[in-house]
């Protein structure tokens, strides 16, 4: 049966040669392809293989600490505990989430949604719960055997220890927006989800406070499971430390004094320009911005009638009212238009052409000299003096005192304010009838009304110049900046003179004497600014009550009430602290603003001179621990 070997129907060798040739050709093709992949393109494939396995994640740095002039931290960091899940270590994600939901008493759906929102490689943990509370953390840890792949990780998170305290100075941080991400200076450094300074010093010093993120380099496998760390690691460097000129207790007093009002307080050292307190009301708790904030809450913050985020001390302008008279008086003396004994008769009104300008005292003050005019804040005296100076000289002196331009405070978004002048009118109303200056407009300016507008900060700086020998100081908040380890000072705030008022010392002193009388005189408008008699510290200052609407249109509504202003200092001789305060719609400067300033000054002398208040044994520290959210911002005028 098997006999085919006897006749071989074909000749084998030539066929074998053909077959072998085909095989060799095919293998040559494979070898050529290998040569192409491994020799010609080998390097680029080697690079890609490296990129495949070597991954880098950022290690967030701790934000720089902000502390007061004595090193008391105002903004620091605390550990936030996040409940995180590593997907590759969780065999049954659904069941694990159900367990967590049960433990923490939240609907599981919420965790699922959070999980779904977070994409990215599997080695990056998914955050199930941000900033978990102590009990939540304890519950998770107690049940960790039932929660494979669930870990508690901690990261530094911004913490404003004193809640609302100095909120407008410190500012707030918030998740970075798209527009910031696209900024060229931020490119490649920030990534979505980072927190960035959005107001106050947090914004101003963002690049220094931010710190340097570290890099964690490691090897992953194809399932994005971290295999091991690579030797090249970059540790995170915390942000620089900012030491402020603020004093926490004075600041707390300022915040407390404004509680329930709308307004601002600036307390500074008149000789140097150091800001001791800067308060704006209503204020806010910056801590809420680091957490989750609903769009509604956010829009209320930004657009609400209260303008909570607005720093009224530097971003808002007000007519200075009668406070302006102190500067006008000094200018009049310098120009030789008046002497301390020059008197004017105040019948209760003043006529310019057809217009009648009223004094706030309808019956008139009678004959008044400069001292009396300042003490009782007689308007007519200054209508007359204003007319003699003329608008351009008023503008000149006001400008020398620093009005009309930003003070140069190291805080963003400072408003310049405005002192009217002929040139300004020409510019402002170019081509209209209004472009001319009418003599009838000068009286309003002379008593700090009309178009005159200043920031509380400018008021403080100007009065400082009046009491420190005529030097216009640049106010500053940052005393020093230290490297993150606190060793090296990288920046130092120094007193800086930015101008001279050009008024002889004797005249400045004359006005200073008169300002003592405003507080301590029997008829003085700022009697409520007096410090406790036992302290034997004399105070001086000037009140202001600036009109918001025309007197004829004024009603009893709170928003029609006058703004109450006061700028004063103490001790009257060689002053250490100067306070400018404004209470929006507070009524009268002497009644509403002077007590605010007094409270701030009292806090200062209690702290720096160990003075004890005679009436009440007020504890030294009165910051009013507002972390629990006692609804300070809920206040405001009825």
């Amino acid at each position, binding site marked *: 049966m098997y006999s085919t070997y006897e006749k071989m129907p074909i000749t084998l060798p030539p*066929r074998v040669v053909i*077959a072998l040739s085909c095989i060799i050709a095919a293998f040559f093709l494979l070898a050529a392809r290998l040569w192409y*992949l*491994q020799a010609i393109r080998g390097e680029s494939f080697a690079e890609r*293989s490296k990129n495949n396995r070597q991954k880098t994640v950022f290690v967030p740095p701790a934000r720089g600490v902000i502390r007061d002039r004595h090193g008391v931290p105002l903004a620091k960091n605390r550990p936030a505990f996040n409940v995180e899940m590593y997907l590759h270590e969780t065999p049954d994600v659904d069941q694990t989430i159900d367990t967590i939901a049960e433990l923490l008493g939240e609907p599981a759906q919420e965790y699922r949604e959070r999980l779904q929102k977070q994409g990215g490689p599997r080695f990056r943990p998914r955050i199930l719960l941000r900033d978990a509370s102590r009990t939540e953390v304890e519950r998770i840890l107690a049940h960790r055997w039932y929660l494979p792949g669930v870990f508690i990780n901690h990261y530094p998170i911004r913490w404003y220890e004193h809640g609302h305290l100095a909120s407008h100075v410190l500012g707030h941080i918030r998740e970075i927006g798209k527009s910031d991400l696209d900024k060229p200076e931020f490119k490649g450094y920030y990534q979505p989800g980072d927190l960035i300074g959005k107001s106050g010093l947090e914004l101003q010093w963002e690049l220094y406070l931010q710190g340097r993120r570290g890099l964690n380099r490691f090897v992953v496998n194809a399932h994005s499971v971290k295999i091991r760390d690579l030797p090249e690691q970059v540790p995170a460097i915390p942000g620089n430390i900012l030491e402020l000129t603020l004093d926490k207790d004075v600041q707390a007093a300022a915040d407390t004094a404004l509680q329930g009002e709308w307004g601002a307080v600036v307390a500074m050292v008149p000789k140097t320009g150091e800001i001791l307190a800067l308060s704006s009301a209503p204020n806010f708790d910056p801590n809420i911005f680091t957490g989750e904030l609903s769009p509604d809450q956010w829009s209320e913050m930004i657009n609400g009638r209260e303008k909570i985020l607005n720093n009224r001390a530097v971003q808002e302008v007000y007519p200075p009212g009668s406070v302006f008279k102190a500067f006008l008086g000094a200018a009049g003396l310098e120009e030789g238009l008046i002497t301390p004994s020059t008197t004017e008769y105040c019948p209760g009104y003043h006529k310019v052409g057809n217009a009648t300008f009223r004094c706030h005292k309808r019956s008139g003050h009678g004959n008044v000299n400069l001292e009396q005019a300042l003490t009782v804040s007689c308007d007519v005296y200054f209508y007359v003096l204003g007319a003699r100076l003329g608008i351009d000289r008023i503008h000149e002196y006001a400008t020398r005192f620093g009005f009309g331009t930003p003070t140069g405070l190291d805080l963003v978004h400072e408003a310049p304010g405005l002192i009217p002048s002929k040139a300004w009118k020409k510019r402002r109303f170019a081509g209209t009838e209004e472009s001319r200056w009418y003599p009838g407009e000068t009286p309003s300016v002379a008593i700090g009304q009309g178009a005159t507008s200043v920031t509380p900060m400018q008021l403080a700086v100007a009065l400082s110049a009046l009491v420190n020998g005529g030097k216009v100081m640049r106010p500053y908040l940052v005393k020093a900046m230290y490297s993150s380890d606190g060793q090296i000072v990288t920046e130092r705030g120094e007193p800086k003179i930015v101008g001279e008022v050009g008024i002889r010392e004797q005249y400045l002193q004359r006005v200073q004497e008169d300002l003592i009388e405003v507080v301590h005189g029997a008829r003085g408008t700022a009697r409520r600014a007096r410090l406790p008699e036992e302290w034997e510290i004399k105070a001086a200052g000037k009140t202001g009550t600036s009109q918001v609407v025309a007197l004829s249109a004024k009603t009893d509504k709170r928003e029609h009430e006058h703004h109450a202003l006061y700028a004063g200092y103490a001790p009257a001789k060689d002053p250490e602290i100067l306070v400018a305060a404004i209470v929006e719609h507070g009524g009268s400067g002497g009644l509403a603003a002077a007590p605010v300033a007094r409270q701030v000054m009292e806090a200062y002398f209690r702290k720096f001179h160990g003075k004890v208040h005679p009436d009440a044994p007020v504890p030294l520290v009165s910051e009013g621990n507002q972390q629990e959210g006692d609804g300070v911002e809920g206040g405001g005028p009825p």
Partner: protein
Amino acid sequence: MIPEIRSYIRSLDWVLLLLMFVIPTIGLTVLYSASYDPDLERRFLFWTLNSSLVFRQLLYCAAGTFVMFLAAALPARFPYRFSYALYVVLLGLLVVVLISGTITNGSRRWLSLGPVNLQPSELMKIGVILALARYLTKVPPKQRVYGFSELIVPTLIFVIPMAIILRQPDLGTALTVGAIGASMILFVGVKRWVLISSFLTGLGGVLVAWFWFLHPYQKLRVTTLFDPESDPHGSGYQIIQSKIAVGSGEIFGKGYLEGSQTRLEFVPERTTDFIFCVLAEEWGFVGSVVVLALYLFLLARILQNVARSKDYFGALVGVGVVALVFFHTFVNLGMVVGFLPVVGLPLPLLSYGGSSMLTTFFALGIVLAVTSQRSAFSR
């Protein structure tokens, strides 16, 4: 008995046997690296669970070697005599598999026989080789080469199992069976117009298959081949990662156990179909070409035996086995280096897997039996 054993040993092709030892040994070495887990090594002794894959492969090699020597010891006429019976039985098993086979990865390929899992399509490759060799031996071409009508039966011999296997579906094995059949017939020779018309038919068949029969996943494998980067995490993933693994080996490789692409599991199927990636990555171009050369030697050596053969049936079986090994090798490597679509064909003697290992050893054993000089006088 002793002289018979002696003549048996003398009749064996020791060059071929050496290659059949060297290549699987390299395979085990590469497999050890492909399945290496440093964590496990710390926990267990080297020879225990650590390399269970290697250990099992070693068992398959041992079993395969035994089967090979057993097959080589068969009387030369034995394969000839039982070729049709084997073919029919396997055809029956294929049908059974199609009806009641175990489904793995979406296709019916396995037949559960108690503790043993049988893959009839794997054995069918040999069944087709033997049956076709016998038929071609029995019916040589009337003229110098085959004409159209003479080819109907031999074509059916390999097309029928091919069609059944395609239904499983197992495109790779079906194509292998087709390649084997076509190679054997072509080796004997066909008329020119048969060649041309079958080429055109084949082309038409491909087009028809493309538009009517191929599964979307199969088509995707082809389209992806030309542009793997269009879907780097989906269909293109395997091709891209495989190319990165091979390419990143560069000339001299990353070193044994140092292949990050494979070690860190970027390349799927790195112990089976894509085991060549491990080799290329760790041993580089040099190592790859050496292994390529070993395969070439193996095929050349079988062909040499074929050329020397006095036995027509034996020669045709040799050609069939060459076609089998070559097709597997070429398609597998072509897939690994990214110029052929991903069809699941293992690399003979290197990929992990008992079926492939046993089939290859068995096929080589039959080659040894039918092409040895002994066969001419011990029929």
